[in-house]
């Protein structure tokens, strides 16, 4: 998990769609254009809150969370679909959603911090 994170850390959210992801991402963008929801979303973490309590992305869309607090936070699905490592200040984590559904998540250090990703 640590190795995977290194590639993501400090990368701008919009830079995440690398060349090897072109196919699905293009499709996601087309879906986004059709459904009106952006293919990728950025959720800021600040003052122990997620800037967007609910984000909606198309199938194949990526959500990036970036931590601005000096506290460590995590982004962990309540059903263990995704699980970030500890995000220190200015670190980010991205997850690409390949299946439609409603994904609840929370910070495992501060469990009152909760959020939802809707993939459709």
């Amino acid at each position, binding site marked *: 998990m640590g190795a995977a994170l290194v590639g993501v850390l400090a990368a701008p959210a919009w830079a995440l769609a690398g060349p090897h992801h072109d196919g699905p991402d293009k499709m996601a963008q087309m879906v986004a254009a059709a459904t009106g929801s952006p293919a990728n979303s950025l959720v800021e973490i600040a003052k122990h809150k997620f800037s967007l309590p609910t984000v909606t992305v198309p199938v194949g869309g990526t959500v990036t969370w970036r931590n601005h607090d*000096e506290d460590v936070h995590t982004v962990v699905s309540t059903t263990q679909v995704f699980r970030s490592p500890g995000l220190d200040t200015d670190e980010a984590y991205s997850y690409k959603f390949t299946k439609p559904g409603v994904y609840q998540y929370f910070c495992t*250090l501060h469990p009152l911090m909760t959020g939802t990703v809707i993939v459709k």
Partner: protein
Amino acid sequence: MRDDLNHSHDMDRPDGHGGDGVDRRGFLECMAWAGTGLVWVAAGGILSSRALSQAAAADAAPAAGFSFVQISDTHIGFKGEANKDALGTFEQALARIKALEPAPAFIIHTGDLTHAQKAGAFDTVTEALKGTRAERVFYVPGENDVFADGGKEYLGRFGGPAGNGWQSFDYKGVHFIGLVNVLNFKAGGLGSLGPAQLDWLKKDVEGLSSSTPIVVFAHVPLWAVYPKWGWVTDDGKQALSSLKRFGSVTVLNGHIHQILQKVEGNIRFHTALSTAFPQPAPGVGEGPGPLKVPAEELRKVLGLREVTYVPGKGSLAVVDSTLA
């Protein structure tokens, strides 16, 4: 809130013994805040505050008693603006411990040894604490020590024979209980002990005489300091109900990086300073988290705690000191 410290019925009460006729309402009015540079001493059921220099002179433990040190929230690995040198302030706290006369019998660390559970951080803490003259160090975990791997590394190192991290021991007539309330956080939930630990606690104290002084230590406060910020243990009350019959219960917590005190019946609650960074007072500002203070103020809001037991006195003397 500092004005509360000047309540005459607290400050001017003679060094009372026995605690009969103690005005509990008065305690509750005066609970909560203790300012930097003052210490609170609980003796014979009476809380009083004195200046630090007086406390240092008066609190040398007689032969039959002992003292121990509580440190908390060392957050090794923290590099934020709130303290660029968290390792340095931790080492400063250790220097204070080394200078204590008499040396503390042992040290209790109430969690958040590390900031982000990075490789080597636990070693840094344990190695540094070996340099003190304390015979042993007892640990309970904070959420920052267990979030990355569900407690695997922490419990492997400090979990004890049963591997669950909770523990009890007796020292010179005092019964000590270390509780774990940071594992298995649920979305939207709070600190919790869980049924297995509560059962264990109940059995652990079953055979003890009610006159046995009890010291409980855990990371997240066992009482509701500020639930909106998660500063509470949701089943803390159940734990405390197992301890109600005891004449002297001292509860030592960390997590909130500031000194708060409360007395409820025979139970005295104390949260401790961090050695790494302060946090805002409950409900002040947008949320909890490292609080940046002017550089010259930082050491006034970091510190450690010495607790002294004197047989026959009933309560333990709790003395907080800062790194300033």
